[in-house]
């Protein structure tokens, strides 16, 4: 379907595809098998200027927005949903600085992120605080010119490879959800270390680790926005980043769809290509329709965000919810279409099925997304009724 991309957007999409085909595809199977992060892929993304897509030109970026980022993440994820995360998760972690950073903070951190010299990680999740972000236990205590952070974050994407982390910690437990603050923590700051490296079902080429804070001293200048704004920073960040997860899911599903159609055309059973059987045609048609619907929704929401749309929480949650649920269905169907071969690691679809699953879980589980959507629906209905 034609989405009437501008020339520049088409350039981004084509280049991301070229990088994906020539640099990600040859290494994806081994990176998945060995659960190895690839600095070679990071280098290729850097050389293509993809890290700066969504960052302002004044900080060395290309001046694009969420939509441009989504185009690139989709193309990279079409080849590997794990390798694309060095970019996608860095963007998630950078939105807090982009949305809430002072000019000094932006000048200090954004240029190196824009060139890909520095990767970033967003540290919200804890062992006792997943969907229940309010149960955050990591604390940040003011001490003179610094804050001292203590606690443990887990399941942090890019945790083992990030130079910059945006961390949510409680500065005032008594204030509940208004008691958290957001900080920029740099690799190498004393008291900040990387813990356990997780062994995952999918997206195995991405780094997922614990982050440990033991009397980690962070200067006051690294506080983002104001004390107490932590959860607002997190929520606004997630509003902007959800289309990115949707794009990852979309890309994975697209790769699976293409693999399924190609296989069905060439695999012969009962004297014919299996693509000539209506049962399989219907499966493929449903897969393709679902992918396109997810794409249309994701692109519309990304464009809305970039155009400065208000009330983006609901559409943003919807696109993440829809695209991720779709990706899990489509990749499972793709394995089914490939049959026995689909189950074997020799073919790419079983990895796509394993990779897709996480998109229903991270950056807000799909259950939380439904909570967000329902809450907005009810609020909007109530405010209409009151008129």
């Amino acid at each position, binding site marked *: 379907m034609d989405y009437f991309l501008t020339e520049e957007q088409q*350039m*981004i999409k084509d*280049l991301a595809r*070229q990088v994906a085909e*020539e640099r990600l595809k040859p290494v994806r199977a081994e990176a998945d098998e060995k659960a190895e992060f690839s600095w070679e892929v990071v280098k290729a993304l850097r*050389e*293509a*200027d*993809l890290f700066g*897509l969504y960052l302002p030109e004044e900080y060395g970026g290309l001046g694009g927005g969420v939509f441009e980022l989504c185009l690139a993440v989709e193309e990279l994820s079409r080849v590997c949903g794990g390798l694309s995360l060095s970019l996608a998760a860095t963007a998630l972690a950078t939105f807090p600085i982009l949305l809430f950073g002072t000019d000094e903070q932006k000048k200090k951190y954004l240029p190196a992120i824009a060139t890909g010299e520095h990767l970033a990680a967003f540290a919200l999740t804890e062992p006792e605080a997943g969907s229940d972000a309010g149960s955050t236990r990591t604390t940040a205590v003011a001490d003179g010119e610094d804050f001292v952070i203590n606690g443990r974050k887990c399941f942090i994407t890019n945790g083992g490879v990030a130079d910059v982390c945006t961390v949510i910690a409680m500065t005032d437990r008594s204030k509940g959800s208004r008691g958290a603050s957001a900080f920029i923590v740099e690799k190498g700051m004393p008291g900040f270390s990387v813990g356990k490296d997780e062994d995952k079902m999918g997206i195995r080429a991405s780094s997922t680790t614990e982050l440990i804070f033991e009397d980690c001293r962070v200067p006051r200048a690294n506080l983002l926005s104001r004390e107490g704004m932590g959860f607002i920073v997190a929520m606004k960040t997630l509003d902007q980043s959800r289309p990115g997860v949707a794009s990852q899911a979309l890309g994975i599903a697209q790769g699976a769809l293409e693999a399924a159609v190609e296989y069905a055309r060439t695999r012969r059973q009962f004297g014919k290509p299996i693509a000539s059987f209506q049962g399989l045609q219907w499966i493929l048609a449903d897969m393709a329709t679902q992918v396109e619907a997810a794409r249309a929704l994701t692109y519309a929401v990304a464009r809305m965000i970039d155009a400065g749309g208000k009330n983006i929480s609901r559409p943003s949650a919807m696109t993440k919810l829809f695209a991720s649920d779709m990706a899990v269905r489509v990749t499972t169907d793709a394995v089914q279409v490939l049959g026995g071969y689909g189950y074997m690691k020799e073919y790419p679809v079983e990895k796509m099925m394993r990779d897709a699953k996480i998109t229903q879980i991270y950056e807000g589980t799909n259950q939380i997304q439904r909570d967000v959507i329902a809450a907005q629906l009810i609020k909007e209905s109530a405010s209409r009724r009151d008129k």
Partner: protein
Amino acid sequence: MNIIVCIKQVPDTTEVRINPETNTLVREGVASIINPFDLYALEEGVRLREARGGKVTVISMGPPQVEAALRETIALGADEAVLLCDRAFAGADTWATSYTLARAISRLEHFDLVICGKQAIDGDTAQVGPGIATLLDIPQAACVRKIIEISGEAIRLERMVEEGYEVLEGRLPMLITVVKDINQPRLPSLKGKLKAKKAEIPVWGADALEADPERLGLKGSATQVVRIFSPPARGGGELFTGEAAEAAAGLIAALRKAGVVSAGPGSSS
């Protein structure tokens, strides 16, 4: 360093088909690409500029559509590009092509190094690089796989020969042709593509080159392509089947019969 890279736009010959009636290349629907060896040449030039400063200028002789290929080289890191395009250049063999490119190079400012790909994948002659060097009267090295060092005007490099490689020392300005072992070409960058979009690519014709019209194009060609054909398919050979020992014995017997191997000790025939 002032570096000049020569490129050629060629059909993507992995896709090529011969028209059985006319015995010529079917060019319709075949994508045009930058000759793969030339991408390695360009990459080497860009790496040298990144290490030492200077400029990379890319030139190419061809029809107007070659401008797209030259823009691509800017997206890949070239600073400037020039298209040599004129009806008079058409039909050129490697001799006339070498002359045209050499004329263009001599009209560019002083250069230190000319880099070409080893050969074009459509012509496969590997003659133009050496031809240009000869006409410019500069030293040349073909099939270069590594530039070891450049110090002032002195250059040391490795070039492939059939059994291995030679280490050569030369003096700039010089021309080299490169093989794929020399580097891994980069992919274009977005900043490069945006720069390429805006770039001005001058077109030079025969007049701009102040070229001798007798040495251009078909007129200036000492050779002409008369016919391109697919060689006839070779007949099948003899197939030896059965158990390995049995098949091997049959093979040896046939080789002996053909006089390829002599009857040796322990022969069973």
